[in-house]
């Protein structure tokens, strides 16, 4: 009987895999671990890309801003980059989180492709990324003036994403800011 039982092995492995796939259906890979929504941005103190000085959480406060996670190794970051330049020109403050990247390559990228960022946090080891729950680049976080994470978008920010998701939230938050 043993040889026959052995033939069931592929079936058993497949059923185990299917269980994961089923579980996967109810998980949204683009969703932020709920713990961070409406929670303050984690504290950090990391170098500014290409400079000696450090940047901290407090430097990002005071206005509604985007925090964009990017890297030169990231395929989709290159796709969204021109659009980030565009919204930065429209006056939206964007901070960069240069994630697990090489400083020199990142600096070259910015000089060549243009720099939409107010400042770039050089997260070489990915420690802030870990705290944020970044699971891949690009990701874009919407922070309010008090430094609370209000939204997280995983994937490319293009015209559609900006106009249908991020901009309405952004306008709502800035409207609150001027009202209060």
């Amino acid at each position, binding site marked *: 009987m043993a*040889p*026959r039982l*052995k*033939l*069931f092995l*592929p*079936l058993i492995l*497949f*059923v185990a*895999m*299917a269980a*994961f*796939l*089923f*579980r*996967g*259906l*109810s*998980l*949204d*890979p*683009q969703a932020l*671990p709920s713990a961070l929504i409406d929670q303050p941005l984690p504290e950090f103190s990391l170098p500014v890309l290409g400079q000696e000085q450090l940047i901290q959480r407090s430097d990002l406060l005071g206005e509604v801003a985007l925090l964009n996670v990017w890297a030169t*190794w990231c*395929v*989709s970051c*290159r*796709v969204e*980059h*021109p*659009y980030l*330049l565009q919204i930065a020109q429209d006056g939206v403050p964007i901070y960069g989180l240069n994630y697990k990247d090489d400083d020199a390559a990142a600096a*070259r990228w910015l*000089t*060549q*492709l*243009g720099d939409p960022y107010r400042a770039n946090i050089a997260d070489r080891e990915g420690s802030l990324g870990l705290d944020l*729950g*970044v*699971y*891949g680049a690009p990701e874009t976080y919407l922070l309010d003036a008090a430094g609370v994470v209000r939204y997280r978008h*995983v*994937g*490319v920010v*293009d*015209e*559609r994403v900006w106009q249908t998701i991020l901009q309405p939230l952004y306008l709502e938050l800035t409207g609150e800011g001027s009202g209060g």
Partner: protein
Amino acid sequence: MIPEFGHFALIIGFVLAIILAVVPAWGAWRRNSRAMALAPGLSIGLLVFVGISFACLSIAFLQDDFSVQVVAANSNSLLPPIYKFSAVWGNHEGSLLLWALILSLWTAAVAVFSAQLPLLVLARVLSVMGAIGVGFLSFLLLTSNPFARLLPGTPADGNDLNPLLQDPGLIIHPPLLYMGYVGFSVAFAFAIAALLGGRLDASWARWSRPWTNVAWAFLTLGIMLGSWWAYYELGWGGWWFWDPVENASFMPWLAGTALIHSLAATEKRGLFKSWTVLLAIFAFSLSLLGTFLVRSGVLTSVHAFATDPARGLFILVFLLLVVGGSLTLYALRAPSVTSRVSFEWISRESLILCNNVVFLVATITVLFGTLFPLIMDALGGGKYSVGPPYFNAVFVPLMALLIPFMGIGPVARWKRDSVRRWQSELAVPAIVAVLCGFTLPLLNAEYNLWVALASVLSAWLLLGLLRDLWYRVKSAPSLAAGLRRISASYWGMFVAHLGFAACVIGVVATSQYNIEHDLKMSPGDTEVLAGYEFRFVELAQVRGPNFVADEARFEVSRDGEIIARLAPQKRRYLASGQVMTEAAIGAGLFRDLYVAMGEPIGSDGAWAMRLHYKPMVRWMWLGAILIAFGAFTTVFDKRYRRLRKQAVAGASGEALHGA
């Protein structure tokens, strides 16, 4: 009205698929030859009605019928007609319809070209294909109706096709890829039919082999085109990213590669029967898994379709039925006794076993890397992404391990061979290969160890093949007579293995010797790269049918002679406002010159430019074309024609063999 006709034709196709799945299978069970004989007719009917449905959707796209939802979302009146047509499969619903069309195409092809098969086998095979058709057509009709209307509220114009997909490569990439994916359903159906009939023999392997080779060849071409497209369209010169969707197409290819080799051993020597059946099930299951991954939203990817959990659940249930069902059947019916045929360790059989182990490990590696983020997430282990470093670290050594055995393969004899014979046959190729490894990299300025290794391995493959060819030809009265005597399937193997060697050279040379300059350039500037002088002549504004673009005009010269004019563009598509980089490539057999525009810098016409020198990058795709060509060639082998006659003679064989 045309979309409603299309919808109706799809429903008729669905009903025919149900009949095809049920009636001939019942006939095969009850030995009712009238019921079994319905199978070919039903298969052709299925093709006709799914074909009508597909034609109706194409007409809706070509006529700019924006009252149809998918047309409004994926086309635009300014789109050139050829892209209106390819937009049919540039979206979830339409591509699924294409999938169903290709499935019915394969089903009808089996019905027509395998008419000489024993009726019992043919009825079972076609029934299995019909059952797969039921799954896909019900998926279309229940969750993804391509003919849904936007009434009232028809938009004046459509949203346009994603500019990334407005490209000649993308017109034929999905159809070829699906021909491959879906083609494995034939191998799968033959495997299931063999399990149902309880006869796993050499004739089963011989029947399914040509189909499997053709499907695999299509898949090879499809993957190659995808890689080529990424190279010139995405604008940064990469050609493989280990993206989940790429992996989804690569896994069936890897399993399929193991399958076509294992089928050879089953056909020629009656070996590895259960294993080959299992591989046939794997190859098609991985195709279905790919569909699930791309369309369910469980993984993020740059080219995933708009996703929907209801669709994901549907495919998962379908996957459970097809894969779970077939693996259960396998567990119950596969012969558990070790086959009586034996072979020694030094033989072609063990080399095929090596191939199978390497490709299976490669498949599992890619599968694991692709699913790892999902598994960790499901276990509550956090969010992960698995990138190229993992895949490269596992994949490169695996392929390097494969090639030494691959070089011996053609020379080796079935059943029993001797190390001494291998030594005498292959000593010269081995020495020459090592010499090639030392000398070939010297052609380039810097000596590179990886290129040396690739040269040794490719030369070893090439020389092993030539040695074997010589061995086969030398006893013939003349060279021409000797070459004529060689079978089509041998030529197919020869060309495909040659193509693999070319791929290895291309991949390694381009990864190692690639030169890339990113710099700021104004009109009039020049930059020298690997001896080529790139002169930025002028900047121009051009207007396309549905975009406006900045165009940088370059002259590339070598030794003062102009050898190429390149005009990369930065396009802005009017309907969506999306900005796309259109790289310009001066292609050559030994090097590609690649220019892509970055961003404008300042207002004086200066731009960030990306210049690449990519040696031998074409070899990779030419190699893939050779591989596919080789696999197509095998189908013309004489023995498949002879087989038809035999099949007619022995048609009643299994009916007597009985349940």
